[in-house]
């Protein structure tokens, strides 16, 4: 989706302002939202790509206005309803509907360390042939899907070089929509800064983007 989240290359978003001695969470509720996202992910009703896409669906003016954890909260509430962990009515009333079953949380304080240590690896040990190899010239496809994609707009249609084949990974563009993992090779592709931004850019500099087989074509 050509949304406002796809920000690479925009120039009017203001200065980068670093905060000295920044706390991990600025307000206690931010920590709760962070932790809720982690704990609820353990229900495996969605995946990381689906939750990213849910945040991308926040309307652009809201997306830019909201703080980071407000976006997380908004998307989490939508996921909870869409994936049927709670109903819209429950979200509105703040109380379980009469007769709704009581579940057992999949994560407890005791299992948090194991949950975090395990993570959610997305490298897949399946025999999928690589379409490209290191050193090969490629072009990022000029695609404009209306759903989730990890191919940023600024790289589309641009020529680059495969620097490294990372192996077989889950493909977020389908996984975000629960259309399967479609595992395929993931590459680091080097795009010269001048290819992306024109002659004004430094001749030495480059942007490396991780792209999958489905994002690339031979140049």
């Amino acid at each position, binding site marked *: 989706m050509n949304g406002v989240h796809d920000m690479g290359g925009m120039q009017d978003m203001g200065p980068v302002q670093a905060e000295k001695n920044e706390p991990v969470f600025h307000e206690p509720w931010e920590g709760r939202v962070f932790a*809720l996202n982690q704990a609820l992910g353990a229900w495996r009703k969605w995946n990381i790509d689906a939750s990213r896409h*849910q945040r991308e669906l926040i309307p652009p003016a809201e997306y830019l206005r909201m703080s980071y954890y407000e976006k997380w909260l908004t998307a989490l509430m*939508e996921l909870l309803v869409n994936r049927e962990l*709670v109903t819209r009515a429950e979200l509105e009333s703040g109380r379980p509907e009469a007769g709704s079953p009581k579940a057992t949380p999949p994560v407890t*304080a005791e299992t948090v360390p194991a949950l975090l240590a395990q993570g959610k690896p997305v490298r897949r040990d399946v025999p999928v042939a690589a379409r490209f190899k290191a050193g090969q010239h490629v072009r990022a496809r000029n695609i404009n899907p209306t759903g989730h994609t990890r191919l940023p707009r600024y790289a589309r249609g641009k020529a680059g070089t495969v620097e490294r084949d990372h192996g077989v990974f889950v493909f977020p563009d389908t996984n975000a929509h629960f259309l399967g993992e479609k595992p395929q090779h993931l590459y680091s592709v080097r795009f010269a800064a001048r290819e992306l931004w024109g002659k004004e850019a430094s001749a030495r500099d480059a*942007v490396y983007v991780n792209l999958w087989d489905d994002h690339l074509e031979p140049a």
Partner: protein
Amino acid sequence: MKTSRRDFIANAGAAAPAMHDLAHAQESEHEHDHQVVPSDPALRVKSLESLLVEKGLVDPAALDALIDTYEHKIGPRNGARVVARAWVDPAYKKRLLADAEHAITELGFGGQQGEHMIVLENTPKVHNLVVCTLCSCYPWPLLGLPPVWYKSAGYRSRAVIDPRGVLREFGLELPQDVELRVHDSTAELRYLVLPERPAGSEKLNEEELTALVTRDAMIGVANVASPKPGGGA
């Protein structure tokens, strides 16, 4: 996802009245029921958490443990330990650059948001900078949760088109003969920059070196400064 943007707007709006009700109810107890209370995220989160706990979907003690972990146990010191080890142990550095995942596991780090790792080596001729233009991907096990500026629109947008300008705002003027490589974290592959070991640090031990390494240097928006004379690390 099947939710259209129109649905999303309608749905997002639908949740607001409940939040007002909750706030309203609380205000009523204090005889301020004439006031219109804005939908405060703190109240919305409180309402959501109590619903989820009541439904047995989350354990509040697990939430406490998750917050405690990222506030107190996981942070940039982990990444600094990896960097310092690479500086003092050439064999480790070689393993780290060839297979970061396993080399980082040797020091006991890994897991959530650091399942797959790449370490990028800065040299006198190459400087690496990490960004996530599409969201906020960041190597949690090594650096903790990202600072606000890393997640900001300003950084995400300009780090790819004007990286030297962004570095200048961080006080780093990169010489023109240094190649700048910007890495956009578009996949589940997290990056850690291995900064150059600063001049004057030759006599420091691994622990002292660890104390020199900053979060910003491991993102690539800074270099590691030389130790202060006489002050150690």
